[in-house]
């Protein structure tokens, strides 16, 4: 399970790419390039990269409305994902899904649900089909702490455990369900403890520690692949973005968080800062290399922005396409 220097640097690189992508979006939103809304994931990069690094190429992923980081961590094309966020024809759904519906079917990233908690049962069903088809794959399901109070969480985890399907349920506990703090929404704030009720392993890990996330997911994936069933992993981190979503016409609505909390997390618990420091201490990341990684990510983002801006708008006829599949099944 020991990660090589190369693997660790690869993970760092992916975290930096996701961070740059996400922090760039509020600007483009304010400039009007992003319709409706969008959800950025600063503070959750270690979860995205740690978890996706623990999967095989042909494993499946199901995610949420806040999934840019997940799909990029899976290796999706940054230009294609940004084009989707910008609603362009070249985006992964041709601009029809937008920020909340990123996917990459070539990498078995089967999309998202923008209904909080909506993906949990779907991920269970992907696990069921894997089991019935005996393909030895695994499905990883990202969802948030807010989803843990939905009925889908209970029904989905119970049925997945009952049928021992190879699905890893990964709760990104960023401590706020929209604006509601965890303790105001969950009677027991230890979400992982609920695994006991479903007779599956539950583990709570530091979601700002990419290696801790990787190791927890890796062992849950191995267990699932051996046919021993699902696991629940809770990754505790923090939503570093000032607001829960990109919004029109609201002033920075951050009063719901205690004063100084956001700043403290940026200062002490920024997953990228922490990982950078660890890599430096290991002697893997000299300042020069760190600068180079950032410059490369910046260049990739610039190219993605260029691609997205220059991409055509979808033709009006495309709004009516893709609703029904044509006849002709086996």
């Amino acid at each position: 399970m020991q990660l090589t220097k190369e693997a660790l640097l690869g993970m760092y690189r992916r975290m930096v790419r996701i961070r740059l992508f996400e922090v760039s979006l509020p600007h483009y939103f304010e400039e009007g390039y992003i319709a409706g809304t969008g959800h950025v994931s600063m503070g959750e990069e270690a979860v995205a990269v740690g978890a996706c690094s623990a999967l095989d190429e042909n494993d499946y992923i199901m995610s949420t409305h806040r999934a840019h980081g997940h799909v990029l961590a899976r290796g999706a094309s940054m230009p294609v994902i940004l084009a989707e966020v910008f609603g362009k024809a070249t985006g992964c759904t041709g601009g029809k899904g937008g920020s909340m519906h990123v996917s990459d079917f070539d990498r078995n990233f089967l999309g998202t649900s923008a209904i909080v908690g909506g993906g949990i049962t779907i991920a269970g069903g992907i696990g069921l089909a894997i089991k019935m088809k005996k393909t030895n794959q695994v499905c990883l399901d990202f969802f948030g702490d807010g989803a843990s109070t939905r009925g889908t969480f209970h029904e989905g985890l119970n049925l997945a455990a009952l049928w021992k399907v190879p699905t890893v349920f990964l709760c990104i506990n960023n401590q706020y369900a929209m604006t509601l703090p965890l303790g105001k929404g969950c009677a027991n704030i230890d979400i992982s403890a609920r695994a006991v009720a479903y007779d599956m392993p539950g583990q709570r890990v530091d979601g700002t520690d990419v290696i801790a996330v990787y190791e927890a997911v890796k062992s849950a994936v191995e267990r699932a692949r051996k046919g021993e069933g699902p696991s629940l992993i809770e990754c505790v981190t923090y939503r570093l973005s000032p607001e829960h979503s990109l919004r029109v016409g609201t002033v920075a609505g951050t009063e719901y968080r205690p004063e100084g909390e956001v700043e403290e997390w940026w200062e002490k618990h920024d997953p990228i800062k922490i990982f950078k420091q660890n890599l430096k201490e290991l002697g893997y990341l000299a300042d020069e290399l760190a600068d180079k990684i950032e410059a490369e990510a910046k260049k990739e983002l610039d190219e993605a922005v260029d691609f997205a801006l220059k991409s055509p708008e979808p033709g009006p006829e495309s709004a009516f396409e893709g609703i029904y599949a044509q006849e002709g099944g086996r």
Partner: protein
Amino acid sequence: MAQHQITYREAIAEAIKEEMARDDRVFLMGEDLGRFGGTFGTTRGLLREFGEERVRDTPISETALIGFGLGAALIGMRPIVEIMRIDWMAICMDEIANHVAKMRYLSAGRPEVAMVIKTNAEGGLGLGAQHSQSFEAWLVHVPGLKVVMPSNPYDGKGLLKAAIRDPNPVIFIEPVTLLSISGAVPTKDYVVPLGKADIKREGTDATIVAWGTLLPKALNAAQTLADEGIEVEVVDPRSLWPLDIETIITSVKKTGRLVVAHQAMKRCGVGAEIVALVQEQAFDHLDAPIQRVATPDVIIPVNRNLERTVLPQEEQIVAAVKSIS
């Protein structure tokens, strides 16, 4: 063609059995449908035939049932999920309307969601407010779904087989009061295509469009009216979406009069859509205002007399036709 007489519930089980034998991607899951054979007996014998892997008894978890079905469909399985009563689709309407119906559109048309959600609807058995409703209009209202509601064993079996083979999510609704009726069903493989209406009785003086429990009532009404010299054409849409409006329009152009009869609530029922389409497309061919026979603005009571009072009956269809003849 060789045929045998079987009940509607047997026709359902036969359709599933044949399709599961034909395609190993097809499997069945739902509450009390394996060991027990289904609350209304439509899955009897299937567990013995195919085993627990492909005939899955589930806990009472409608939300998980639809979500699991969708997930399985996304990677190439062809699940049939049973929701025991259409009333309980309210529990999993998020999964059906927001997920099953939209996943393909939100994925640039990449996955096929080849999934059948099978349920039964309508009242008449004294099962009361939460076990007697007809929510077909809720489902027809959602783009991305197909909705069928066949009214006899032949149509039931043929449409269920077509639904299972269709690459889209199809809601298959059994009219609960008709499950015990018998009819002739071919022993050889056949399908009834989705989106094709059937003229159940030909006539020249008025058209009745009816489905579900109201279809046999409409046929009885047509006989009563024929005895009085009014020849009625009875059209069964069978599929409510896609809707074969052409067959309805052709009939209305012939008869000039239309009555739409269904057991679902009159207000915003599928009948209202049919009325709107007919006036848009055949206004000049109408000789009288279109009439609707349906359940009024009421909750369905258990007491037999009260239930019969609120649910539309044959005599109301007769009266509706006479009122415009």
